[in-house]
């Protein structure tokens, strides 16, 4: 039937135009990464040539080992991993305890305090920084990661607490009630019943904290002043300062700092995207 054919044709045209738009946006958004990688494989002359050389000839893979040996890149990575490792422990411990208190036990004032906690998300980092810096300086903690690690043991990661609370709320209350009847105390219920069930939410928290540390620039900039202890973000900035005339190296360093996180993202996408959706809508996706 011609009418039916027409409709099918329209539908196909619609599908094709949808893909065309999606592909166009993908190219636009993907281009900077593509260009970073291409630039990292050029000679300095090629990189600065006008008109622009699109395709490096040959691919100068040597930029990577050269850049890696010119700067303590591995050291930066090691520092970042240490920063991430310790704060992950802090966040997992404190946020899960706090989230439990905000979800599995009913008490007066709980929801009000929870609102207070969530609203601290809106306080800009710099609004409270100066007195904290003075305290840490008096405690001789400035210069190393202490000021960035200590708060994570005191529930500073509000997003993690929020995420875990949302998850804890989906666990049937009857499990806790049954355990209470059997005489279990709250800490037992927290550690033996709720936490084992919350492994997926914990995985999300760990992932977010890792990425946060990998990208964190402001915290280390304020507190870490010795290059030996620089994390990746400051290291990258240092490379820029030292080799600002050698853009292929700068781009190689940027690629080396970005690649691990993109690879991690590929393997953990579901957890990742669900976690963000929960933060925004409060509903487990």
């Amino acid at each position, binding site marked *: 039937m011609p009418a039916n054919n027409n409709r099918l044709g329209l539908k196909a045209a619609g599908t094709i135009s949808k893909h065309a738009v999606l592909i166009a946006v993908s190219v636009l958004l993907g281009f900077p990464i593509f*260009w970073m990688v291409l630039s990292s494989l050029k000679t300095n002359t090629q990189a600065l040539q006008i008109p622009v050389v699109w395709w490096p000839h040959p691919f100068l893979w040597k930029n990577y080992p050269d850049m890696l040996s010119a700067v303590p890149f591995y050291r930066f990575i090691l520092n970042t991993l240490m920063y991430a490792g310790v704060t992950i422990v802090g966040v997992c411990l404190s946020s899960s305890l706090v989230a439990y208190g905000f979800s599995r036990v009913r008490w007066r004032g709980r929801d009000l305090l929870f609102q207070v906690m*969530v609203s601290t998300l809106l306080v800009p980092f710099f609004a409270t920084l*100066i007195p904290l810096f003075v305290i840490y300086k008096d405690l001789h903690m400035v210069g190393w990661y202490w000021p960035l690690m200590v708060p994570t*043991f005191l529930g500073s990661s509000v997003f993690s607490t*929020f995420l875990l609370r949302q998850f804890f709320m989906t666990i049937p209350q009857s499990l806790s009630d049954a355990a209470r009847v059997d005489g279990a105390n709250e800490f037992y219920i927290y550690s033996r019943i709720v936490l084992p069930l919350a492994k997926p939410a914990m995985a999300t928290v760990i992932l977010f904290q890792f990425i946060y540390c990998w990208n964190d620039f402001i915290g280390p900039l304020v507190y870490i002043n010795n290059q030996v202890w620089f994390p990746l973000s400051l290291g990258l900035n240092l490379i*820029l300062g030292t080799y600002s005339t050698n853009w292929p190296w700068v781009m190689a360093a940027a690629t080396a700092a970005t690649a691990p996180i993109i690879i991690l993202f590929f393997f953990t996408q579901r957890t990742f995207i669900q976690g963000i959706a929960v933060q925004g*809508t*409060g509903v487990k996706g």
Partner: protein
Amino acid sequence: MTTETTTIETMFAGGRMAQRVPPRSSRAADRRRARVGLLFISPWLIGFFAFFVYPFLATLYYSFTNFGGVGAAKWVGLANYEALFRDPLFKTSVFNTFYYTAIELPVATASALGLALLLNMNVKGRAIYRTIFYIPSIVPLVASSLIFVWMFNPVSGIVNDLLSGLHIPGPEWFFSITWSKPSFILLGLWGLGQPMVIYLAGLQGVPKDMYEVANLDGAGPWQRLRYVTLPMISPVILFNVILQLVACISYFTQAQVIEGTDIGGPGTSTWFYVQYLYEQAFQFLKFGYSSAMAFLLFVVSAAIMVVLFKSSSRWIYYASEQQ
């Protein structure tokens, strides 16, 4: 979704959630539960006083003093605030931050929502597109700043090369006083993955039958967006706008990195509020002066939030309240 789940945006909106009535029980049991609850949240409670209450009060106090970080703070009254309002660099940094926020906030909101609407279309391979759309926002900020400075560099950058192919003379982007702020806005638009994913989750939560009803009423795509989609996701919009606003007001990392390159940030055209605060505190050790800036930052952001929440009752639709 259980009845107990509270969405973050209702938290922000000031306790609109239904107050749960705890089951009748003895006062002793109430007290015991409150003790247990407070014990569990005690890490955060300690942190709250140490990292918010004390610093807030101390910032206010320092802002009335002349303080270099060591020794005693010397009381100077309102001198810091008076000096601030006479300081041209302070005014510049306020203007730049305002300029950036005023443009970035609406444009970023529309773009993130636009990307989410694209991803919400019914086509095959949506997951792949979503991955590609999301990736820019996990690139470390330092790296993405470097990429943009490099791509937009006025001499050998790929952007101006492409523009000259179209016979458009490219501006000097980060290197130009007029174009540096728009360049930062472009950089901000590359990395909207987080609000995009949140909008997408919001869009997927809009009941399908609402669109069917709208279709029956003869609503076109634009009307469906205006009268169904936007009201239904308005709480999510508020949430994203607030987070984006906090990010805009405290704009720092990208500007700091790009000004460190030899081709970015001319003069004071990209001197943002928080950068000026940082410089006054940690390069010139003027802790009193920068505390005055920090306190103003706090007051202004709190005021904006209050205005947003107060106005939100007029444009936010909470499905649960209509019952």
